[in-house]
């Protein structure tokens, strides 16, 4: 692992970027499409191209779908992939399941024109926007487009929010006497708090979001993330912060007894550990509600354009939305499902209670500005330099 050090993966990345240059061939139309029907590669909705049944038959003719960076234990993707394959007899080729959003963008650039080029993406919002600006995405609006909140979709249909959750505080009730329910309470000393976040906030969006939530709890705003950095600096100084990558392993070993992480990942990764179903308590902090959603997008050069569109229709159907919910992620159309009694009640009850009122989100400009601040200040403020 260490030997796959900087130089080695610089190498890998450099090859990837070279691929961009060397593979200049246009996307081949490997898929066979029925003559009479319209071109699914440019269809912006199912209706515009003959409706759902035409889409299903075109997708089944393609027979394949390439997905990327979908871990099977993440937001229930393992089940979702199996169910889709069974329902439509389409074989899913799942590439690099543990990869990052940047890996996805690198892949669609490097694999362009190949039959295994990813058809669909599941990316953090800034990456969806970046890909859209580069003209790498095919706009498409699913049948339930209207139920996706306007703040969580590109008006053109290049990318659209899919599932997400809230920054939550998970706590081991077996070793912590008083489980904190707010950022302020986590500053209490003498309680034996060993608080961790999942990775480096300049690298991982879960950790970045934890800092943003801390800012909201400490007088900051979507325009001002600095109080969040100050908060962790103070936590670090007090000795409550465990500056390592927290997750199931650090929880089991006792290195961290409190983790600030997405509620749905706490559920699928920590509550799922043997014995942790009841003793790991997850709450949304009372002094900050910060939510974020990932986005779906279709690769413009998708080798299986109909299957890609069918995948999106499936994900945004009641079935697809409930499957995410069963993975303890909050599907984007959850308010609609709840209002129409369509949500899986048991899965819904398993989620930590969401804060009342409508959730607000930072704009992309606010996020970018905050990222710049975190990139510059996190390493110097919350630091243990030489």
């Amino acid at each position, binding site marked *: *692992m260490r030997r796959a050090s900087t130089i080695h993966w610089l190498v890998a990345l450099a*090859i990837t970027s070279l691929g961009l240059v060397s593979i200049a061939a246009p996307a081949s139309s490997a898929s066979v499409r029925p003559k009479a029907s319209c071109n699914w590669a440019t269809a912006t909705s199912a209706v515009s191209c003959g409706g759902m049944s035409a889409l299903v038959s075109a997708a089944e003719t393609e027979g394949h779908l390439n997905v990327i960076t979908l871990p099977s234990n993440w937001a229930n993707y393992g089940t979702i992939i199996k169910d889709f394959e069974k329902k439509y007899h389409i074989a899913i080729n799942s590439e690099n399941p543990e990869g990052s959003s940047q890996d996805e963008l690198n892949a669609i650039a490097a694999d362009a024109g190949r039959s295994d080029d990813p058809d669909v993406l599941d990316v953090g919002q800034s990456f969806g926007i970046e890909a859209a600006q580069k003209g790498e995405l095919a706009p498409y609006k699913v049948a339930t487009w209207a139920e996706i909140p306007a703040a969580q979709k590109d008006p053109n249909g290049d990318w659209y929010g899919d599932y997400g959750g809230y920054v939550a505080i998970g706590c081991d009730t077996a070793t912590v006497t008083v489980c904190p329910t707010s950022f302020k309470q986590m500053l209490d000393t003498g309680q034996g708090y060993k608080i961790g976040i999942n990775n480096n906030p300049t690298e991982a969006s879960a950790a970045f979001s934890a800092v943003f939530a801390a800012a909201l709890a400490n007088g900051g705003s979507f325009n001002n993330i600095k109080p969040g950095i100050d908060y962790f600096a103070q936590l670090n100084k007090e000795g409550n912060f465990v500056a390592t990558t927290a997750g199931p392993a650090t929880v089991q070993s006792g290195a961290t007894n409190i983790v600030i992480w997405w509620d749905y990942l706490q559920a699928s990764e920590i509550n799922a550990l043997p014995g942790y179903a009841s003793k790991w308590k997850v709450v949304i902090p009372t002094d900050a509600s910060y939510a974020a959603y990932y986005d779906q997008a279709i690769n413009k050069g998708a080798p299986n354009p109909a299957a890609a569109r069918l995948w999106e229709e499936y994900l945004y159907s009641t079935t697809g939305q409930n499957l995410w919910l069963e993975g303890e992620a909050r599907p984007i159309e959850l308010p609609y499902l709840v209002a129409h009694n369509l949500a899986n009640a048991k899965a819904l009850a398993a989620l930590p209670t969401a804060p009342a009122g409508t959730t607000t989100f930072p704009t992309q400009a606010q996020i970018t500005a905050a990222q710049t601040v975190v990139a510059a200040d996190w*390493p110097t403020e919350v*630091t243990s330099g030489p």
Partner: protein
Amino acid sequence: MEQIRKRGLVRGVRPALAMAPFAIYTFIGLGIPTLAVISLAFRSEQGKLTLANLHTVAQGTYRIGFENSIILATITSIVPGILGVFLAYAIATSHSGMLRRLVAAASGVLANFGGINLTFMFIASLGSTGVLTVWLAAIHANPWHYGFNLYSFYGVAFVYMYFQIPLMVLVITPALGGLRPSWREAAENLGASSFKYWRTVGIPVLLPSVLGGMLLLFGSGFAAYATADTLTAGTVTLAPIQIGAVLNGNVIAGEENIGYAIGFGMLVVLSITMILYGLVRKRASRWLR
């Protein structure tokens, strides 16, 4: 005459042919990417030639990253370098062939051990609730009570010892083998004390090899990424971690060229290290044939 010349030519071609797969592999795996990193470091996101990326990474948090990486690499080359020499000497002069083989094999494995596995091994053993920590606490010697913090700069340096010391043992053992017993016998026959032997023969002969080994350790410590990244959640700013953040991360989008510029900076540092290594190697090989 003609015949001989032809043979000579064939003889020259054959080794070159044998080398070709390796040369091609190295060129594709290392040469092209190196050129790509250098070229992209000087380009803007729009592909125009620029010095802006280098300017950015020469200051602020990126400069701190370089400074920390160099300090970390220096500490983790000198300390394990010295410890490694003593360990290797003790092993080389031991009478147990079994022990020598065992240490050689273990060093080969441990020198390549790193990343998430290594991180978790240390969290599980020396984290605040680690197994070893709990044992030490039982005899009132909990290192965390004496200022030890695994998730800090010195924590990272400490963890690096785990692969740096075996690496030093690996690179220095052949040099120790070159220290011929007959030299020591000759010195003793001429009345030299052990101290005098080391001062006038042993250390001068070994020094270039030790320095060379330390330079290799410097390169290894400077470029190591996964261990520090997983251990410290970015609270220790190091150049490789910053490359990871811009090239590989989920947070910062569209700043890849900054990553290439940091990569270029690292290439410069490593090139200097390699040139120095080449120089001391030349010196070292004088005695060790």
